[in-house]
């Protein structure tokens, strides 16, 4: 966990998920209670990346191996929300995989927060 600055330079606590190389970074969570949707926020330090000099970063979510959504983040947005529809898994406990990937993987100090509801 770390803290980054959002577009008003306020603090946001998040999970640091820096993808290395074009293959990206895969984070797996087992036995996760699933709700009607998975929502969250993601970003990079606004101060460091606000001029949008890098390409986008993609966050892909899978539940039990099935894709449930994809969020494409641009640096200059700052701390930005996303949501994936997981209604078909609601009420179950399942394996969740989040993959962070970028075609421009240098300096992708990506950080996110996610929860189910």
């Amino acid at each position, binding site marked *: *966990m770390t*803290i*980054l*600055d959002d577009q*008003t*330079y306020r*603090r946001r606590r998040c999970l640091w998920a820096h993808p290395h190389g074009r293959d990206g970074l895969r984070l797996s969570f087992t036995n996760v209670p699933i709700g009607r949707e998975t929502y969250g926020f993601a970003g990079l*330090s606004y*101060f*460091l990346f606000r001029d949008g000099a890098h390409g986008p970063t993609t966050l892909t979510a899978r539940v039990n191996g099935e894709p449930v959504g994809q969020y494409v983040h641009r640096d200059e947005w700052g701390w930005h929300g996303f949501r994936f529809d997981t209604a078909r898994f609601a009420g179950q406990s399942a394996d969740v995989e989040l993959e962070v990937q970028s075609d421009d993987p240098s300096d992708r100090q990506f950080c996110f927060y996610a929860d189910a509801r």
Partner: protein
Amino acid sequence: MKLGARTRSFERVDYGLCVVLWLGYVVLLLATVKDLGYARDEGFYFQAARSYEGWFQLLLTDGARALEPSTIDRYWSANHEHPALMKSLFALSHRYLFESFGLFREQGTAYRFPGMAVSALGVVVTYAWGVRELGRLAGLVGALSLAFMPRIFHHSHLACFDTPVMSMLLVTTYVYARSLEGGLGWAIATGVAYGLLLDTKHNAWLLPGAFVLHFLLTRGPHAFRELCAGRVAIPTSLFTIPLISPLVFYAGWPWIWHDTARRLADYVAFHLGHEYYNMEFLGQTYWKPPMPRLYAWVMTLATVPGITLVLFALGLVASVLAIVPAWRKREAGPTSIESAPRGALTSAVSTPLLWLLCLLMCYAPWWSDHTPIFGGTKHWITAYPFLCLFAGRGFVFAAERVRELVPRPALAQFAPELLAACVLIGPLSMTLHSAPWGLSFYTPLVGGAPGAASLGLNRTFWGYTTGAMQGFINARAPAHASVFVADTALQSWEMMRADGRIREDLRGTLAIAGSSIALYHHEPHMHRVEYQVWVDYGHDAPAAVGTFDGVPVIWVYER
């Protein structure tokens, strides 16, 4: 004392007062420098001055080698984005006043001394010009109003260029105004002064435009036709500026002695496309153009003492009321001034017009959508001497009215002096109170520092407030600790160590990991650094907070 008199002559007492003003201001600056930490840019200029000092040494011992292009590049490449006059003076001050004569106990103060000296010159020239145009007391009010602007006072301490360029711009304008009265000497002096101004900082670039505009306006709407017909002469100084100043500029900056065109082009390009700064204004951090149109004006209102602004407004109105009828009268047909010799150019009308044009010229970059986001008030303080000269004129206006209101003649004769004391005591008090937190100071108009903080105006920049926490750092840092210096340049930290302000065993670092003490200078865009400290140190409770009038400015974390 006669108010508002254009004395034209400088009496012995005026020379004496010039010396007193210069010495007094320099002594006041030296007396308040002790806990003023070294600002970020000072660190870079110390480094450059050290390099230039090495070249000056070499010049004395092996002149031929010193003049070789490769040697020049080696010594003068440091901080070549700014011309060399002030940094050369910093170097010479360090070499002679610190190392040779031991006049200063701290190296940093020796580096800072030329900045103080040239800044004090600005106060003196404001007085000199005020005396000539407005009389002695008004000149004094103008000069001290400048000296007692808290931001001017702060910047005058520093080994930087901002108040020196203010002084040099004023000197150049004053000399130019004198040249309009005739005499080749003043015209040559204008060319030399403008060359030195170019060698101080790039604020110089727009000034000739103000001079040309002034020339055209003082000749009325038919100036161009009259010029073509040879009925009016162009002031000699408008020739000496392009003829002499490039030579002075060139001579004073060894970096451009070879490969001149490319290096000058790089210099200009650097400042036209300057990398952005961050500046908080009304709660929002701006970092790319355009800056809000009101930024410079609001910051002027918020940082210049209110009474000085009131006097300025009075003086400006009084001046405009004098300028407009005179200009209209000229439209009616040829006047004596148009056909007169050059000496007739400076008049009660043309001098305030020159002040006004210079003042507007200094603010002009903040009207452009393309001006990069620079720092704060320091970028237009070149306007403040002119603001204070108008304040002197406003003082004359006010003092005459106050004197008329006093019924007893015995008392009335002292009314101007009493009024002068009244209009200066507030700025003096604010100025002394602001040290060493100069950039955190705001006037009562916005509620002082607390009001400004609530409004979201910038609390500090340049990391100089580390100096205000030096006692705490020395007392609490473990032996041989690393201190994360945040916005303080490492060169500035090293100077604090060299001067004994910071313990010898404490190492400055830009890495939070491994540090035992971490500083945070509050600016919204710097929060990122504070969050990193929280994560790395595992807590978010500062061990000490440096405040100005209750407003947190710098805080110190202990691991």
